[in-house]
């Protein structure tokens, strides 16, 4: 028989070896030589924490009691893993994108970063895991007690359990809470677990090989022994086969420790592809020899031996002490690795979902985060680890370690499986809401507790026999073992069926009946569309957040160096020097994810929410986003309007330019015209002056020539007078002598001055002319004279006639001068008011062509208008004068 002292000694050496491996792995990882630790092989081996002491010892016991039914515990995970493409890949992708730290974080994050949901899942995980930890402690003490049989030793079983729990707590605290960012991954722990995975596989294979080829006579003999054994026939009930397979698959996905190694510690998605075949292979090897060991144990060990311990007792009975020692270490590995990872996963959940909400609330509103949050989180994590192991130890003490291993494991599985509907709904169904999730989880938890957890302690411990027999408040249909009066089901199947069914129903109904918050909607889209890469929905908007405050907070949570690194990288990306980037929405989102890696999504969101108060997504924010769109549209409209304005201005400029060009041409024309007009009389004056100087000139001609010179001089003077007059009028420098005058008087004077009576017949409408107007009578007379003279000059008909018609409208007084001549060509109508413009022969007119130009200027100065009136069968001019 192996001495207990040697066993303890070897165990301690093994534990020291594990510490050494973990230390070395941490060191290598710190030095950047940890690349090979992130290989698919290590990943697959770390998944083996699924195989706990329950698997190692309990599977054989399970098989000895119920035959092949034990396989369901492995078949479920096998199906999940070969179906990795559907669920696991999505989980890993989401966890990577959202920096998920635990399964509680996953649900909390999915349902609007709800602290309540995170807390509830954490509580469920703790309740579901505690019996499991107790189970591991029990297996260690039971296995040691096998060796202690017959010897007197100071170590009692409770002592062993206590020391084991304490040792595990130390290991977990040292390697599990060394750093805060879960995404840095626990290389030491993972490495130690990988080593333990190999040890337990080798141990079980070694025992199996020994049993098949050492104790029995090879595979053929074993098959014969199976046929001869009490479990020779296929006795598995349909309900249990389906129920347990489903339960193990669900637990595999939802167990906090499995989520930790499978999703959180996953460094590359492609590792899943390898694990999809390698881990089922591992499970196959682990279960390959279970039936042979059970059958041979039942065959050769004395009746009444505990089948849970066949793995140890078979080698011991054959005096194979070395093999027994290896088997013990295998079982020890199974137990410790499970406890370590479970404690890490649970402590992360507690420190992220239970402590911070309480802590933040205790500090009150508006508390700026002071002190080192890192230390708070780390301390809370360490205390959680101690607390979890204490709970496990207490459960072990209270339950007395009596129940068969398998049944405790199944209770745990069923409790954890309550998370499954909500988790699957969360990653596949966009309509799932927080209310639905809470309803489902609470419903599942209550039904599971009532039908499975509470009765598991036995009658009269937590619930009375009366209740078990007659149901709650004496209602038969509420009996914990026969809900709704359905009897005859296996207790486990009964509990799983009802808890999962009611859970799913409450989840779906709650989701359909409730409405998600804006943040929930945003997160739902993020989760459902995990495989559509693209910009994430905006979670933060540029607020009044100060980058310096953010930095000081981030330093306390993720560490100074890492925080500074992050900030500087972002600042550089924004093109800024130094450590303080602009608090853009993108930056806040990055930061939130960084913080979420340390303290969980809900806490990170709450912390940033406190810093950037009111910046979290609310309906107002969404409206602001809409506003922004509206602003952009408005801006674009403004641009369009401005562009239109520019076009108009450009057109105006072009018009102005055209006008200037025209004016310039006009000016040139005017200059050449005036030169010509001046030159003609000057030429005749010079010519006749020369003639006058001729001594041979006949005396009679001299006065004639002198008169010509005088006429020409007068013409010149008149021209110059007109020009001067025009210039004064055009410049608006004319001084008008406005007074009331009778239009009739003015017309009379003009008619008289023009001396037109003998050349043209003038017809006037006397009745209408009695109008008194405020004007400059002399100037107006000048205009009228000019128009009458024009009619005299140009009206070339046998009986010329000029009609002068006065009209009065409310706004103006019009005076029309209409003759019965040929009128003005249409082509010349526009030109006649221009200087030097003459519609007909130059010489005949006898003027310089400035008359109408002067008229126009005078009328304009008087505030009126003069224009040519077409269509009157003769030349027609209309003068329109404003009324007073």
């Amino acid at each position, binding site marked *: 028989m192996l001495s207990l002292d040697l066993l303890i000694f070897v165990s301690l050496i093994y534990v020291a070896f594990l510490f050494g491996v973990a230390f070395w792995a941490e060191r290598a990882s710190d030095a950047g030589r940890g690349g090979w630790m992130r290989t698919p092989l290590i990943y697959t081996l770390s998944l083996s924490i699924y195989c706990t002491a329950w698997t190692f010892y309990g599977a054989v016991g399970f098989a000895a009691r119920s*035959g*092949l039914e034990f*396989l369901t515990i492995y*078949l479920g995970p*096998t*199906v*999940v*893993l*070969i*179906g*990795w*493409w*559907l669920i696991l*890949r999505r989980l890993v992708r989401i966890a990577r994108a959202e920096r998920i730290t635990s399964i509680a974080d996953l649900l909390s994050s999915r349902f609007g970063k709800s602290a309540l949901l995170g807390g509830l899942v954490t509580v469920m995980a703790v309740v579901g895991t505690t019996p499991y930890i107790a189970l591991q402690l029990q297996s260690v003490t039971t296995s040691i007690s096998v060796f202690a049989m017959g010897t007197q030793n100071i170590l009692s079983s409770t002592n062993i359990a206590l020391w084991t729990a304490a040792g595990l707590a130390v290991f977990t605290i040292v390697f599990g809470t060394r750093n805060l960012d879960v995404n840095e991954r626990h290389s030491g722990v993972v490495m130690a677990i990988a080593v333990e995975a190999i040890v337990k596989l080798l141990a079980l294979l070694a025992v199996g090989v020994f049993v098949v080829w050492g104790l029995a006579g090879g595979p053929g003999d074993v*098959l014969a022994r*199976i*046929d001869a*054994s009490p*479990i*020779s*026939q*296929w*006795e*598995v009930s*349909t309900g249990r*086969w*389906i129920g347990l*397979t489903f339960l193990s698959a669900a637990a595999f996905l939802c167990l906090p420790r499995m989520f930790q190694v499978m999703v959180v510690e996953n460094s590359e*998605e*492609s590792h899943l*592809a*390898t694990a*999809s*075949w390698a881990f*089922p*292979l591992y499970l*196959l090897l682990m279960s*390959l020899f279970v*039936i042979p060991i059970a059958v041979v144990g039942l065959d050769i060990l004395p009746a009444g031996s505990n089948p849970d311990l066949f793995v140890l007792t078979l080698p011991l009975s054959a005096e194979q002490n070395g093999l027994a020692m290896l088997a013990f270490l295998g079982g020890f590995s199974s137990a410790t690795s499970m406890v370590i990872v479970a404690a890490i996963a649970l402590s992360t959940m507690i420190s992220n979902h239970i402590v911070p909400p309480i802590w933040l609330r205790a500090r009150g509103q508006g508390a700026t985060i002071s002190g080192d949050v890192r230390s708070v989180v780390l301390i809370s994590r360490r205390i959680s680890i101690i607390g979890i192991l204490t709970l496990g130890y207490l459960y072990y003490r209270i339950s007395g370690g009596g129940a068969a291993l398998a049944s405790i494991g199944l209770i745990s599985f069923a409790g954890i499986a309550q998370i499954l509907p909500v988790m699957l709904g969360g990653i596949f169904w966009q309509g799932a809401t927080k209310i639905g999730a809470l309803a489902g989880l609470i419903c599942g938890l209550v039904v599971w507790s009532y039908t499975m957890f509470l009765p598991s302690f036995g009658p009269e411990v937590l619930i009375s026999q009366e209740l078990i027999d007659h149901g709650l408040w004496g209602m038969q249909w509420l009996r914990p073992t026969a809900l709704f009066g359905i009897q005859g089901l296996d207790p486990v199947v009964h509990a799983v069926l009802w808890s999962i069914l009611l859970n799913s129903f409450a989840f779906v109904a709650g989701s359909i009946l409730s409405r998600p918050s804006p943040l929930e909607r945003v997160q739902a889209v993020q989760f459902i569309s995990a*495989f559509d*890469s693209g910009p994430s929905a905006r979670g933060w908007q540029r607020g009044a957040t100060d980058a310096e405050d953010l930095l000081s907070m981030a330093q306390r949570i993720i560490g100074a160096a890492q925080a500074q690194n992050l900030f500087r990288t972002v600042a550089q990306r924004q093109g800024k020097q130094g450590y303080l980037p602009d608090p853009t929405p993108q930056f806040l989102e990055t930061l939130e994810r960084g913080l979420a890696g340390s303290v969980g999504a809900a806490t990170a969101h709450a912390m940033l929410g406190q810093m950037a108060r009111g910046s979290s997504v609310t309906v107002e924010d969404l409206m602001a986003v809409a506003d922004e769109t509206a602003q952009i549209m408005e801006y674009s409209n403004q641009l369009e309007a401005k562009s239109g304005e520019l076009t108009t201005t450009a057109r105006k400029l072009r018009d102005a330019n055209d006008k200037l060009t025209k004016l310039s041409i006009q000016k040139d024309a005017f200059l050449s015209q005036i030169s010509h007009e001046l030159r003609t009389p000057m030429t005749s004056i010079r010519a006749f002056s020369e003639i006058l100087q001729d001594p041979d000139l006949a005396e009679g001609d001299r006065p004639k020539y002198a008169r010509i010179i005088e006429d020409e001089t007068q013409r010149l003077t008149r021209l110059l007078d007109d020009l001067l007059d025009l210039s004064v009028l055009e410049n608006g420098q004319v001084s008008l002598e406005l007074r009331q005058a009778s239009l009739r008087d003015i017309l009379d004077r003009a008619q008289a001055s023009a001396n037109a009576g003998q050349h043209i017949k003038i017809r006037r409408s006397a009745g209408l002319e009695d109008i008194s107007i405020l004007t400059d009578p002399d100037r107006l007379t000048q205009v009228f004279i000019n128009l009458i003279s024009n009619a005299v000059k140009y009206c070339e008909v046998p009986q010329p006639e000029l009609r002068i018609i006065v009209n009065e409208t409310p706004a103006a007084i019009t005076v029309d001068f209409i003759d019965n001549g040929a009128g003005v060509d249409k082509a010349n109508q526009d030109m006649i008011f221009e200087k030097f413009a003459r519609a007909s022969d130059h010489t005949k007119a006898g003027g310089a062509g400035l008359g109408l130009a002067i008229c126009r200027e005078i009328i304009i100065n008087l505030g009126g208008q003069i224009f040519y009136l077409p269509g009157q069968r003769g030349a027609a001019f209309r003068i329109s004068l404003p009324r007073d």
Partner: protein
Amino acid sequence: MIGKRDQTIKRAANAARGQRVTDSALILPCVGMILFLLPIMWLRSSEVAPAAGIATSTALIYLFVVWAILICCALGLALLIKRFGVGRS
């Protein structure tokens, strides 16, 4: 131009193959589940004459063979998925 067209055809063929691989990856767990659940249709010895029931040894061999086949299929699929780079963005 021809080279470009060849490339396009090759890419289309690869995409089609990748689609077949991912479809298989979705179907494999269903096949596994059905094969693992087939035993519920086996007769139990208690219901009929003991000799008519399925022996544990037979069931054991059936389950382990199915398991091994599934593992091989998963291995093949994992290799194909890596080769075609499916699912990588």
